[in-house]
């Protein structure tokens, strides 16, 4: 490790703003929305204090935030924005344009539920709604991971084999507004790690003027473009790991597509993502210390979804419980992680039984007690060899 580390106590939004200061993007266009607001406030102050070279655009909506970011990123420079919830929903059509134009935009999204009823607290319904938009989506467990993911996202997005936008996800309030202890790298090391952006095309290349966002018709190339976009997402499975390993070598914290606890000898496992992983890990470790063969997978990359890697890891297990902080409203199909995991396991000869726990919508707390209850049901399922109830709502008053 040759990077200087400063230990700090920061709320999640300040940790992300600090990462943005070190990335020092050329343009940031953003709009306030709870609980993201603190990022744009802190960053605006950094601009006002001359700590960054960034030109800030205080736009009149999230729709314009993403539009301006797309315009800026098409001009050969590094452009960022950040949002939450309704703001992400308002950006929706532009998310597809950012990925379709292969623009490596990095956007922290502080996960918050979508209206109605209006609720400012955490669930993953906002970013899950954008799961088919062609953005890479990386979840964070705490402020440290939000900081680390934001920095790594630049490298992942701009990788020549990818050229796709990245959403860095962190739980609203639980991460964004809680003070956490984290290690910050020094500016020079971060700058060296991310390097400079060298796009193939820029609107501001006077020698090679270019048309961006051209029209494609029935006999055009739309299908080929979209297939190439998927290729970028497939390539991301490797690049996310490469960048995570390099980050680990330099800074001492390695990252992959997911993190595991006790999976080497687990007979059943829990899968979760975001801040809930902390509570679940505590319970899993507690159970393991008393000899229970339980393991845990903390999903970091939801897009791309590491289907093959998860299937290999779960092959032969007796049962798997999937925790989802959002619902798909598909008629008892369960949450999005559950649906995708079940699909990933389909071709396995030795498939584990699967149970889904939808929890924490609108910020409802996931207590240790609730995790214990779910773990107990998981063990029971593994012992009985059948699933009593596939989709369960954990912590629901009924």
């Amino acid at each position, binding site marked *: 490790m040759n990077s200087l580390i400063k230990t700090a106590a920061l709320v999640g939004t300040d940790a992300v703003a600090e990462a943005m200061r070190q990335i020092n993007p050329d343009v940031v266009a953003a709009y306030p929305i709870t609980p993201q607001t603190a990022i744009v406030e802190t960053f605006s102050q950094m601009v006002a204090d001359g700590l960054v070279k960034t*030109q800030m655009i205080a736009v009149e909506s999230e729709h314009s935030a993403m539009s*301006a970011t797309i315009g800026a990123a098409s001009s050969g*420079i590094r452009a960022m924005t950040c949002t939450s919830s309704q703001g992400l929903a308002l950006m929706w059509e532009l998310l597809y344009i950012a990925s379709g134009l292969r623009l490596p935009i990095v956007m922290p999204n502080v996960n918050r539920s979508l209206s109605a009823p209006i609720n400012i607290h955490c669930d993953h319904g906002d970013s899950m709604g954008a799961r088919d938009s062609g953005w890479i989506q990386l979840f964070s467990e705490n402020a440290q991971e939000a900081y680390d993911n934001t920095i790594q996202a630049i490298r992942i997005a701009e990788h020549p084999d990818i050229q796709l936008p990245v959403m860095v996800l962190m739980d609203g309030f639980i991460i964004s507004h809680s003070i956490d202890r984290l290690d910050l790298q020094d500016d020079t090391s971060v700058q060296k790690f991310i390097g400079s952006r060298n796009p193939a095309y820029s609107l501001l290349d006077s020698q090679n*003027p270019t*048309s961006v966002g051209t029209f494609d018709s029935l006999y055009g190339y739309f299908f080929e473009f979209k297939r190439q976009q998927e290729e970028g997402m497939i390539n991301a499975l490797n690049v996310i790991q490469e960048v995570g390993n390099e980050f680990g070598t330099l800074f001492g914290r390695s990252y992959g597509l997911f993190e595991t606890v006790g999976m080497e000898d687990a007979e059943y496992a829990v899968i979760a993502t975001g801040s809930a992983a902390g509570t679940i890990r505590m319970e899993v470790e507690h159970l393991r210390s008393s000899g229970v063969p339980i393991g845990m997978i903390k999903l970091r990359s939801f897009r791309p979804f590491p289907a093959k890697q998860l299937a290999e890891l779960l092959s032969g297990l007796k049962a798997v419980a999937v925790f989802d902080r959002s619902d798909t409203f598909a008629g008892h199909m369960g949450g999005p992680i559950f649906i995708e995991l079940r699909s990933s396991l389909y071709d396995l000869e030795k498939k584990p039984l699967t149970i889904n726990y939808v929890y924490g919508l609108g910020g409802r707390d996931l207590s240790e007690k609730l995790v214990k209850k779910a773990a107990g049901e998981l063990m029971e399922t593994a012992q009985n060899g059948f699933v009593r109830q596939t989709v369960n709502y954990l912590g629901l008053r009924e």
Partner: protein
Amino acid sequence: MSTKLKDLVKKPQILSGGHRLCAGCGAPIAVRQVLMGMPDDIQLVVACPTGCLEVSTTIYPYTSWNCSYIHCAFENAAATLSGVETAYRSLKEQDKLKEDYRFIAFGGDGGTYDIGFQALSGALERGHRLIYVCYNNEAYMNTGIQRSGATIMGTWTTTSPHGDNSFGKKENQKNMTAIAAAHNIPYVAQASISHWKDLVRKAQKAFAADGPAFLNVLSPCHRGWRFPMEKTVEMAKLAVQTCMWPLYEVEQGKWNLTTKVRDKKPIEEYLKPQGRFGHLFKSSPEVIAAIQDNVDREWEKLLRLCGE
């Protein structure tokens, strides 16, 4: 800068031939006249919202634009271009770019008056140095003639049809030029492709403005207005002569009438040759009178604002 025809014809063609706009379309005339007002020593980035001009000039893998161009979506040309302009300022400040650039958006009235209204207002308020040109043909023509906020009362469109219970569009158009002027930006003007010298001079002022500029250019659409395709410029001229489309500018807050109309022609002379108003002459003469009233009222208001 010169507005002499012998000088203007020597300007480079930014919008090249071979685009797929209809013969007789007003939009490329508006674009060419505006770009004749561009200084010689600058680079240009054009932005288009979704619309006729966009779909007809950039059919992949071709482009009609001899400059950089971006299309993002329908309602966000101004916001997208504000991002490009900000990226430019960033590079300039970092001393990473030598050339001088200007930024110009060409949007139809749907993308300007209606769906793109918020993004345009935001960009004007933020003071980006960009020009927003509305090539105004008073309806959604790209999707096949639907009413917009720019459509005149009484107009037949496919979403304001006339019938036993309808005389066409019920409401007057909004005054987008005045709304743009209310943003207190350096330069706002209303122009027509029929008055090219006036238009080029206004474009020159827009390019010179140290901040946002807005040009509202009447660009008739023979498909939607229902007149013979060779009459495009004539229709635009009639709109000016009847005071349906007065030519004026608002420069640093000062209103100035750029074309004085001494013998205002009756509105019938403008409405009669256009199929979109044909039903009014058969069944709704009172609507023609109401259109005339509105034209007169707006004209008087404008004269007062211009100190005439």
